[in-house]
C-alpha cells in the first residue's frame, strides 16, 4: 500500500494537468466519483451521514489488521468525487498515519477555489470525521 504522502503527490500531479480550468476540474472530480464503488445501501444510514455537508455524504469505516478501511458515497456527483479523494488517500492506512496526516494536497490542488467556501467547509467536516474514526479505532486498540 502506498503511503499517504505518495498518494497525495499523485493527486497533486493529476490535478496539475487541469491547471486553472475549473470546468475541467469539476468534470474530473465527477469522473473520480464515478469510479469509486458505490456504498452498499445498508450503509447509507443516517448514523453514517457526515454532519456539516450541504450534500448528503455517507462514510462507513471498518478496521482490519491495524488498518482503517473507508467506503463512502454522496447524493451529488461532485461531492462523491471529493470524498473519493479522501478515501483514496486515507483508506487502508493505520490509525496513527491517518491522525497525523498532513493533507497538504487539499491546498496544493487549490481545492478552495475549485469548490468554493461552502463546500470547503463540508470537505473539512469529512476530514474531521475520518480522523475521528481513526482516533476511535486507536483508542479501542489501546484499551484491549
Amino acid at each position, binding site marked *: 500500500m502506498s503511503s499517504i504522502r505518495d498518494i497525495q503527490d499523485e493527486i497533486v500531479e493529476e490535478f496539475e494537468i487541469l491547471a486553472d480550468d475549473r470546468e475541467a476540474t469539476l468534470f474530473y472530480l465527477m469522473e473520480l466519483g464515478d469510479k469509486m464503488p458505490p456504498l452498499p445501501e445498508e450503509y447509507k444510514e443516517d448514523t453514517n451521514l457526515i454532519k456539516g455537508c*450541504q*450534500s448528503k455524504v455517507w462514510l462507513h469505516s471498518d478496521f482490519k489488521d491495524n488498518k482503517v478501511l473507508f467506503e463512502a458515497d454522496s447524493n451529488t456527483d461532485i461531492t462523491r468525487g471529493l470524498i473519493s479523494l479522501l478515501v483514496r488517500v486515507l483508506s487502508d492506512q493505520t490509525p496513527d498515519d491517518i491522525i497525523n496526516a498532513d493533507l497538504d494536497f487539499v491546498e496544493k490542488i487549490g481545492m478552495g477555489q475549485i469548490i468554493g467556501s461552502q463546500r470547503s467547509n463540508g470537505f473539512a467536516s469529512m476530514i474531521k470525521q475520518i480522523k475521528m474514526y481513526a482516533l476511535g479505532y486507536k483508542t479501542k486498540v489501546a484499551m484491549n
Partner: protein
Amino acid sequence: MSEEVKTIANQIDITAIRAQFPILQREVNGFPLAYFDNAATSQKPQSVIDALTDYYTNYNSNIHRGVHTLAEEATNAFEETRIAVQQLVNAREAEEIIFTKGTSESINLVAATYGKAFVNQGDEIIITGMEHHSNIVPWQILCDEKGAILRVIPISDTGEIDIDDFRQTLSDKTKIVSVCLASNSLGTVNPVKEMIDAAHVAGAVVLLDAAQALPHMDVNVQSLNCDFLAGSAHKMYGPTGVGFLFGKRQLLEKMPPYQSGGEMIKEVAFDNTTYNDIPFKFEAGTPNIGDVIAYKPAIDFINSIGKKNIARYEDELLDHAIKGLSEIDKVILVGTAKEKVSVLSFNIEGMHPFDIGMMLDATGIAVRTGHHCTMPLMNRFDIEGTVRASFAVYNTIEEVDRLIEGVRKIASRSRS
C-alpha cells in the same frame, strides 16, 4: 448579432440597458458573467448605486421631525420613493404604502396585526402549495396562536392551481387568502383577479405576494382590488433591505400597530399613548433611509423601459430558453404553466441540482439551485430541488444560448 436578437434589441436598446449595470462587465472564472439568479436578487443599475452614495455623501440625516436642511432633503427624497411606489402599483394614495425590510416582513406585518385582530379560533386562512416559506410560516404561527386552520390549494403537475379547488375551499370561515402573484420557484402566474373577486364574496381579505411579479409585469392594486400587496426592492433592481406593504386605507387604519417605538406614535404619556396616522403607525424606529431613497431610481429604471416592454422581452428570453432546454435529452422542466414570468426551473435526470449549478458557474453562468424556500412545493414534485434560471431585462439571447449549451454539455455526462 443574430437576426432574432436584432429584432428584440430594436424594441428596447439592450446594449444601453446593460451599460447601466456595472457588474455585468465582470468576468467569473474567466468567462463573462451571465447572471440568471434574478429571482433571488437582481443586479443594480448605476443610478441606484449613485443614489446611495449621494445620500451618504451629501444629505445623510434622520427623516421627519427635523427642521434643518439635511433632514428636509432626506425626508423629501424618502417620501418621493413612497410616491414612486404608489404610482408603480397604482395605489389610491401614498399613505397606503408602508416601507418594510422586504416582502417577508410585509407578510409578517399583516399576520401580526390584521391576523392578530381579526382571525379567531376556527377561522381559516388559505394559501397555495407553491408559496415561498415566507408566505407559509407566518400563517402557521398565527394559526397556532389562534387555533385557526391553514388550508392549502394543491398544485397540478404543470405547477398551477385549479380555480375551482380554490372556490370550493373558500367559505364564510375564510378570513385571509394569501397567495403569490407569481411563483418564485416555477414562475407560475396565478389567476389572482378571479381569486380576489371570489374571496371578497366570501368575506375574506386577500394579500398578494408580488415579490416575483413586480420586476416582470404590470401590477395594479386598484384594478386587482387586492387588500394587501407585498414587494421587495432588491428583486426589482433596487437595494436590499427595503420592501413595502400596500394596504387599503380602511384596513390599515383599523389594524393594531406592528412594532412600537419612535415615529409610530402621536402622543406618549405613561397613562395613555396614541398612535400616529398611516403609514407612520407601521414604521417604528428610524427606517432604512438610504436604501429607500435608492429604491426610487430602480423604479425609474423600470418605468424608463416600460413594464410592457420588459414583459415582452423577458417572454422572448423565457421562450427561447424553454425551447432550447426542452430539446435536450434528460432535461426535465419543472413548472410548465401557461402563464409564467421569466423563471425557469429544471432538473437533469440522474444529477443533483448542486452539481449542475457548480458546473454552470465554472463557465460564468449564475443560477440558483436547491429548494428555493419552497420545500412543500419540492415535496409535491417529489424532488430535492431544481436548478432555477430567472431572467431580467439585461439578459440576452446569447447568454441564454450559453445556458442551453452548458446544460447540454452537463446532461451528456449524466450517468442515468
